[in-house]
C-alpha cells in the first residue's frame, strides 16, 4: 500500500512541477504574434499551394504583415482576398486581372503523330530525356503524360486526347504547372484573352508541317495584319502581347494553319 502511495505521490509531484514549470516558461518565452498576421492568414485560402512563392499560406501572411509583399500577392484568392487584406493593412489595392494557365500546344493525337512507340515510364520528365524529346514527332509539343495534372491542386488541368488542356474556370493561376512542364509549354495569360498562339514549335515551317497540322510555321502573316502591333514573330514562332491586343480577331482569321485561337 505504501508503495502505491509513494508512486502516486511522486508522479503527481512530477506532473505538478512540470505543469508549473512549463506554464512559467510559456509566459517567459512568449512571442508576440502579429495580430494582423493571424487575420491575414484566416483570409488566405489555406491550400498551401505555394503559388505565391512561399512554402505555405502562413509564410505569405507573415510577409504581407511585415509589408514585404503586396496585399494581392495570393494568386488563388485573387481580387476579393486582396481587397480584404488591404482593408486590414489599411492600404488601397488596385484590381488585378484574373489570370489562367494556358497550354501552348494543340498537337493532340489526331493532329500530331509519333515518331516511335515509347515504352518507358509515363512521366514527362523521363520521356523528355529520350532522343527527340519524347515519342511525339514535334520536338516542342506536349507529351500528355500529365506532370502538370499531378501538381495541380485545383483539378484544373487534364490530359484530353493526348495533350494537356486547362479548365479555365477551375484554374487559379497558381503557376505550379508552369514549373512542372519540362517543355515550358504552359504560360499564364489573362482570363479574358481570346487570341493566343497555341503552338510552341521553333522549327522551320517545313518541319512543323510534317509533324503537326496545326503548328505555327512562322509565316508572319499575323504580324503584318495585326492593327495594334501586338504580334511579333521570333524563332519561327508568333507571340501575342496580351497588353496590346485589342481582340479584333484578324490574326485568327488570317492564320493559314489556324494556330491562333
Amino acid at each position: 500500500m505504501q508503495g502505491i502511495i509513494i508512486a502516486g505521490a511522486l508522479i503527481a509531484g512530477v506532473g505538478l512541477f512540470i505543469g508549473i514549470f512549463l506554464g512559467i516558461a510559456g509566459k517567459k518565452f512568449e512571442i508576440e504574434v502579429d495580430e494582423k498576421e493571424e487575420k491575414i492568414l484566416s483570409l488566405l485560402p489555406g491550400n498551401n499551394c505555394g503559388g505565391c512563392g512561399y512554402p505555405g499560406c502562413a509564410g505569405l501572411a507573415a510577409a504581407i504583415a511585415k509589408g514585404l509583399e503586396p496585399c494581392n500577392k495570393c494568386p488563388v484568392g485573387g481580387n476579393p482576398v486582396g481587397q480584404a487584406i488591404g482593408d486590414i493593412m489599411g492600404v488601397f489595392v488596385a484590381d488585378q486581372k484574373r489570370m489562367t494557365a494556358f497550354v501552348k500546344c494543340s498537337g493532340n493525337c489526331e493532329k500530331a503523330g509519333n515518331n516511335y512507340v515509347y515504352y518507358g515510364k509515363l512521366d514527362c520528365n523521363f520521356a523528355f530525356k529520350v532522343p527527340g524529346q519524347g515519342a511525339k514527332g514535334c520536338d516542342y509539343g506536349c507529351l500528355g503524360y500529365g506532370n502538370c495534372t499531378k501538381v495541380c491542386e485545383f483539378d484544373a488541368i487534364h490530359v484530353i486526347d493526348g495533350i494537356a488542356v486547362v479548365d479555365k474556370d477551375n484554374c487559379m493561376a497558381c503557376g505550379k504547372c508552369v514549373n512542372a512542364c519540362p517543355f515550358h509549354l504552359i504560360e499564364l495569360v489573362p482570363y479574358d484573352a481570346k487570341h493566343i498562339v497555341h503552338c510552341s514549335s521553333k522549327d522551320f515551317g517545313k518541319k512543323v508541317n510534317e509533324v503537326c497540322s496545326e503548328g505555327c510555321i512562322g509565316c508572319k502573316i499575323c504580324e503584318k495584319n495585326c492593327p495594334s502591333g501586338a504580334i511579333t514573330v521570333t524563332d519561327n514562332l508568333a507571340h501575342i502581347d496580351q497588353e496590346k491586343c485589342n481582340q479584333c480577331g484578324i490574326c485568327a482569321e488570317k492564320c493559314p494553319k489556324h494556330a491562333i485561337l
Partner: protein
Amino acid sequence: MKTVLVVTLGAAIVNNVVLSQFLGLCPFLGVSKKIKTAAGMGGAVIFVMTLASLVCSIIDKFILKPANLEYLNTIVFILVIAALVQFVEMFLKKNVKSLYNALGVYLPLITTNCAVLGIAIKNAQTGYNILLSTLNGTFTAAGFAIAIIIMAGIREKIEYNDYPESFKGQASVLIAAGLMAIAFFGFSGLI
C-alpha cells in the same frame, strides 16, 4: 578511453538503434522519402536524444536511485522528456530562431519517440554514469541519422524503378529496411 570508444561505436553502428534494436521505426519509415527531410529528422533526433539522455540520467542518479524508486523510471522519463522537448522548443523559438527553423516540425514530432525513451531506460539499466549516458544518447542518435539518411538515399533511387504493383509503397521500403538490417549485422563482430 576504451569504454568510451566501445560505447560510442557500439551505439552508432554495431547496436544501431533502428537496424538492430528496432526502435524508432515510425520516423524511420515515415520521414525517409527525401534525403533533405531525413537529414532534418536525424539532426533533431541527435539534439533531443542528447538532452534527454543527460537529463534522464541526472534524474535517475539523484532522485530515483536514492529513493529506491527505479521501478518508476519509465513513466517519469516519459513525462520529463515530453516536458523537456516542449521547453526546448519554446526556448529555441524565442532565442535561437535559426536552429528552431532548421529543426522545424521534427522537434515536437519526436517528443515521445520510442527510441528516445528506449535509450534513456537502457542507460539506467546498464548503469552508465552521466557522461557515458550522454555519449550513448548522442551516438545512438547519430546511428539513427545514419540509418535514416541511407534509407532516404535508397528510396530516392528506387522511386522510379519498375517493380511489381504489390511491392509499391511501404512494402518495398520494409524489404529494403530488412536488407539494411542484415547488412548492419556484419558489424556485430566489431566489439
